[in-house]
């Protein structure tokens, strides 16, 4: 009829000892994963796009397609 004495105190500290470093590790890990799978490819894609970007030629192509209201396609 004699049970072992249950844990009376220190439960939060015991929980934090494991879970606080774990929380930090998971957060930093998630941030690193996001950085190298999302933001770095995105930065590279934008750099590639704008490396040889001719905005005037692009504008003229859009103009010929007829999307602008300020300039009509050439020939009208």
């Amino acid at each position, binding site marked *: *009829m004699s049970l072992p004495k249950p844990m009376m105190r220190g439960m939060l500290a015991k929980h934090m000892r494991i879970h606080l470093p774990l929380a930090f590790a998971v957060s930093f890990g998630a941030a690193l994963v996001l950085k190298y799978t999302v933001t770095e490819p*995105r930065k590279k*894609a*934008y750099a590639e*796009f704008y490396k040889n970007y001719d905005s005037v030629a*692009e504008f003229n*192509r*859009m103009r010929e*397609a007829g*999307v602008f209201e300020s300039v009509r396609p050439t020939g009208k």
Partner: protein
Amino acid sequence: MLASRALSLVGKRAISTSVCLRGGHGVAKVEEHTLPAYFDRRENPLPDICYVQSLSPEQKSLKEKEKGTWAALSNEEKIALYRISFNQSYAEMNQGSSEWKTVIGAALFFFGFTGLIVLWQRKYVYGPVPHTFDPEYKQKELQRMLDMRMNPVQGLSSQWDYENKQWKK
């Protein structure tokens, strides 16, 4: 004076059923839900009142025996005393049940039922969609989006091959 002395003789629980008259006015009847209650809670190890309020004669004699030395109590008597004071032990309180299966099942069932209602509504209540949903109109919309180079870096226009007028492989 007489009434208050009478009140002290009456037990605590009996206050709820008797009315004390003092100075010609009646004191309000004490509602049972305003008195301290018993409930089994993990975070409240010692509830305000004992579980069993009205003791049977055996329980009364057990309570008298409790006033003596506790080493004289047998194990069954100790358990009986525990059951007088408490309804469920911590082990009984904390054990899980299969109720979650019923809850999830009922929730999913009502999701499905709502889906049926929505389908019926779509067929019998709503009018036709606008003309802007026609396939030809949608094609023209897409062509316009490609013409104005919408999202050219990573989005829509980046997937279109402008030389060959088709989607990139």
